[in-house]
């Protein structure tokens, strides 16, 4: 507990921890001091002078070192001759702060006048208008006329692209450096900076691509004026025309809390559409940030290619029918058949529970479509009051087989911050990633040997282990908490299982299981795989694992799209049902295709990788005729004579909570609970945190710890140890901007989207005749493909890295012959 300090602000006595800044002390006690450059998530710089207040301190007699007293015995207060910036001044005992007297108000008026010297005040056409502190402060404190000469206002460029995502209006910039400091200090992408100075000062970027950062959109939130705007939203709508709706990001397992703002507009044919995604504050999850994938990734939900009507196969063709007809056909064909179900990790918890119910009722089985194993996370994962934001000195974080910056950017940020607060970071990966810079220990292993490396750290007998492993093991011995992230770099399902078990073993042996802020976190490739593991669904990479015969039912899973060879498993089935947003490759092979509502048009829950159960609300009205996945599954069940909860998502969750111990006691009301968070954001107040929304719709709740799973006895290392001559070991990795069906429709990111590239060490490339930038042919049996060669000295010899979700029909490591594609036209 830090020492407390008592001071008076505007005549009120307040007590706050020592070192609190005056501006924060005031805010904590409901007193707004206007700011521009100060932001509670960043160090103060005192650049704008907006936060000036009058400060007095108890007078001390130099001779006696005693406070001087007034006649009435109260301490005599000495006021500084000049006003002070409350954002750079820490509180002190007995301090007297005045934030609203004439002197302060006059200063505010002057600062506003000064800031407006060349500001265009083009609020009527400014995207920030309506949620802009400069606008609000000008209305409140600004004088009616400036004394500066109107004709001498600077006129600067108003449409400067800082890359294709973020635009700068130079005239509006008030030089607060919030954007620059965010990029440097918060996310360590120093790609924005000041150029020139004084009135000519300008925000610029020299990165390639321009403003190259996965976090760039956040600067548009915290910019206190309309200088920075996103290409996605600028000139799109006025803030007051839009309605906010609480939601979650569905792009990765972090579960960032979002707010979608929507409006009905002529431009979209009279439909109500999402105009933008903004962060919603959840200090235990995403604070007030989101990554650009989350900000710009929602477009698939309103893509014109979405299915609007069921399709059934007639004479070999898929033809549109009504839901009644489709259900009738299902009732006929699927009666008394076991359902073999493949369910995707983009489904809600309720959807997954419904699918599991249908499988059980029909005597079949539901599988989770994933190349990652996670059956241990319900027991070894986080629970209760775990919070990555509380990790620091004395704690340890281990990141294994994951490039967090690419797989889950906000987790990357949270881990970086934990390391900066003093947590010991151990990074295990065969090649360097961006976390390396913050790591205390870096452990390298060969692809395929991840579980061996972990086992070496867990073993008592460390003699054979390398120095780094021993040092890391030493660190773990004294750690209070250990949070482990494991990803899927270089791993398929088998390898993932091995790694997961080795890591669970490490937690177990270190005595970390059950500790408050310790546990295993899977860096999943979908937002809600965790729920699938909580429900005990066995993982399946594709259809090969599913028993033949019966009804095949795919929901939010497209195995044939991932790998054309999977099409073979569709034949020989009695009946195939595909339920999806789009006419996927798998849907094209189905007997019945059922469209569903996007998650933005319904409610539901996701379980984040941290095992936090969170609610999302409908941002848009349901499309006429369509249903949510769980409701549709319940209808199918009903047509076959089974009873499932399909009336409301809240009821479905309640039913689940009654039978699944980890969910015990949780319901939609509990998930909607909020408590006050610091810093306070989202109000139209003058202490401006940004356009991030305050959380009024729920912070979610952790699941409780599930029973201990049985370890797998089988050997769990990826099978391809012996790479045949002439072949390379090809290992998958994940890139943030991929071409998956729920991200590709965000065309704005096209220029930054990862390409189908094979990264390979120059020494491995040379003997194969592969050159930088050339095309290579990869002879994958039954599904050859080409990729662009990128020479990369960080890739271990004999291996090549390929990106997932970019057209390579594999998600697990494999070996293949790689050779140059010769340009026929040239020969």
């Amino acid at each position, binding site marked *: 507990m830090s020492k407390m300090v008592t001071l008076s602000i505007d005549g009120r006595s307040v007590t706050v921890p020592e070192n609190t800044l005056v501006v924060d002390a005031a805010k904590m006690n409901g007193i707004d001091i206007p700011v521009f450059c100060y932001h509670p998530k960043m160090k103060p710089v005192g650049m704008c002078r907006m936060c000036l207040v009058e400060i007095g301190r108890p007078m001390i007699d130099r001779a006696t070192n005693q406070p001087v007293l007034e006649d009435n015995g109260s301490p005599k207060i000495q006021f500084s001759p000049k006003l002070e910036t409350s954002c750079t001044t820490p509180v002190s005992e007995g301090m007297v702060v005045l934030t609203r007297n004439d002197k302060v108000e006059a200063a505010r008026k002057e600062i506003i006048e000064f800031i407006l010297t060349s500001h265009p005040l083009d609020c009527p056409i400014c995207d920030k208008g309506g949620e802009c502190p400069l606008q609000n402060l000008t209305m409140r404190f600004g004088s009616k006329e400036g004394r500066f000469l109107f004709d001498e206002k600077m006129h600067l460029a108003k449409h400067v692209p800082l890359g294709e995502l973020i635009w700068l209006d130079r005239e509006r910039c008030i030089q607060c450096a919030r954007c620059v400091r965010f990029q440097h200090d918060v996310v360590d992408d120093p790609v924005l*900076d000041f150029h020139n100075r*004084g009135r000519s000062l300008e925000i610029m970027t*020299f990165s390639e691509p321009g403003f190259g950062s996965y976090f760039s959109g956040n600067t548009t939130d915290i910019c206190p004026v309309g200088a920075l705007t996103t290409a996605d939203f600028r000139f799109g709508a006025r803030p007051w025309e839009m309605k906010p709706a609480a939601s979650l990001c569905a792009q990765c397992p972090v579960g960032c809390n979002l707010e979608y703002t929507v409006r009905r507009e002529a431009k979209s044919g009279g439909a109500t559409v999402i105009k933008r995604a903004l962060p919603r504050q959840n200090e235990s999850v995403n604070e007030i940030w989101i990554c650009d994938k989350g900000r710009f990734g929602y477009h698939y939900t309103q893509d014109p290619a979405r299915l609007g009507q069921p399709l059934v196969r007639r004479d070999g063709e898929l033809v549109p029918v009504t839901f009644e007809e489709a259900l009738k056909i299902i009732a006929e064909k699927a009666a008394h058949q076991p359902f073999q179900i493949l369910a995707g990790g983009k489904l809600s918890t309720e959807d997954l529970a419904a699918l599991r119910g249908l499988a059980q009722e029909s005597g079949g089985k539901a599988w989770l479509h994933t190349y990652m194993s996670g059956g241990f996370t319900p027991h070894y994962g986080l629970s209760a009051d775990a919070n990555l934001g509380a990790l620091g000195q004395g704690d340890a974080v281990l990141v294994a087989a994951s490039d967090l910056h690419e797989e889950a950017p906000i987790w990357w940020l949270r881990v970086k911050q934990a390391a900066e607060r003093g947590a010991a970071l151990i990074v295990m990966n065969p090649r360097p990633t961006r976390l390396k810079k913050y790591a205390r220990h870096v452990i390298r292993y060969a692809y395929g040997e991840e579980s061996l490396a972990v086992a070496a750290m867990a073993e008592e007998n460390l003699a054979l282990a390398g120095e780094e492993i021993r040092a890391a093991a030493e660190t773990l011995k004294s750690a209070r908490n250990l949070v482990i992230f494991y990803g899927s770099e270089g791993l398929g399902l088998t390898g993932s299982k091995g790694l997961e078990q080795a890591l669970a073993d490490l937690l177990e042996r270190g005595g970390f299981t059950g500790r408050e802020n310790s546990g295993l976190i899977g860096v999943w490739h979908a937002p809600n795989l965790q729920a699938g593991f909580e429900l005990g669904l066995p993982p399946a990479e594709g259809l090969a694992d599913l028993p033949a015969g019966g009804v095949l039912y795919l929901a939010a899973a497209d195995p044939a799209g991932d790998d054309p060879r999977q099409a073979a498993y569709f034949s020989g089935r009695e009946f195939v049902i595909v339920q999806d947003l789009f006419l996927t490759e798998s849907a094209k092979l189905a007997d019945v295709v059922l469209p569903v509502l996007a998650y933005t048009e319904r409610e539901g829950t996701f379980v984040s990788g941290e095992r936090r159960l969170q609610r999302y609300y409908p941002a848009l009205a349901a499309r006429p005729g369509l249903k949510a996945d769980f409701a549709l599954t319940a209808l199918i069940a009903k047509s076959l004579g089974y009873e499932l909860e399909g009336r409301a998502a809240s009821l479905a969750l309640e039913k689940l909570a009654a039978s699944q111990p980890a969910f015990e006691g949780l319901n939609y009301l509990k998930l909607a609970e909020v408590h006050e968070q610091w810093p306070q954001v989202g109000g139209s107040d003058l202490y401006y945190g940004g356009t991030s929304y305050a959380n009024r719709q729920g912070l979610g709740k952790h699941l409780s710890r599930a029973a201990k799973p049985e370890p797998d006895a089988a050997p769990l290392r990826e099978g391809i140890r012996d790479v045949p001559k002439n072949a390379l070991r090809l290992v998958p990795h994940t890139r943030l901007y991929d071409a998956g069906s729920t991200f590709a429709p965000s065309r704005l990111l096209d220029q930054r989207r990862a390409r189908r590239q094979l990264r390979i060490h120059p020494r491995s490339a040379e003997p194969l005749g592969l050159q930088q930038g050339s095309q290579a042919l990869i002879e994958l049996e039954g599904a050859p493909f080409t990729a662009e060669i990128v020479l990369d000295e960080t890739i271990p010899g004999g291996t090549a890295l390929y990106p997932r979700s970019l057209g390579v029909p594999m998600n697990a490591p494999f070996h293949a012959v790689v050779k140059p594609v010769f340009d026929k036209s040239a020969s």
Partner: protein
Amino acid sequence: MNTILNDYADEVQAILARYPQDQKRSAVMPLIHLVQARDGYVTKQAMTEIAEIVGISVTDVASVVGFYTLYHEEKGGRYHLQVCTDLPCALRGADEFLAKLCENIGIKVGETTPDGVITIEEVTCLAGCHHAPMFQVQGDGAITYHENQSVDSALEIIAELRRKAAAQEAE
């Protein structure tokens, strides 16, 4: 290839040696001087190379280049004649001096004479306030100060610079 490391291997090492290992970014200013002396201005390529040497982003190097009037991002003339017009100098007539000087040589502030020898620039305080009007001349890798100037004396200096340029061309 990093042309700065290539052309100035020893100089770069000497510059880096002046700062602690973990504060290499301090070397950014002398390195910018180094390339400006070589190229006459600082290209984006050079900024990229400097960024690589000191381990900061190109944007941060560009920001330093952009902050100081001493550094140039565009080619400009062989000599940059930089006149201070900050308040103290202005009080001693620097504004008028600059205007007349420009009129005399027939170019505007920021422009370069057709022969490519002189670029005139307006800069902030050069710490010669009490001897204004004053300017500095940057070129050939050196900086020279010229205080208590009149338009005539400045024109003489320009003529001298032109002779110097011609002589060097002839070599």
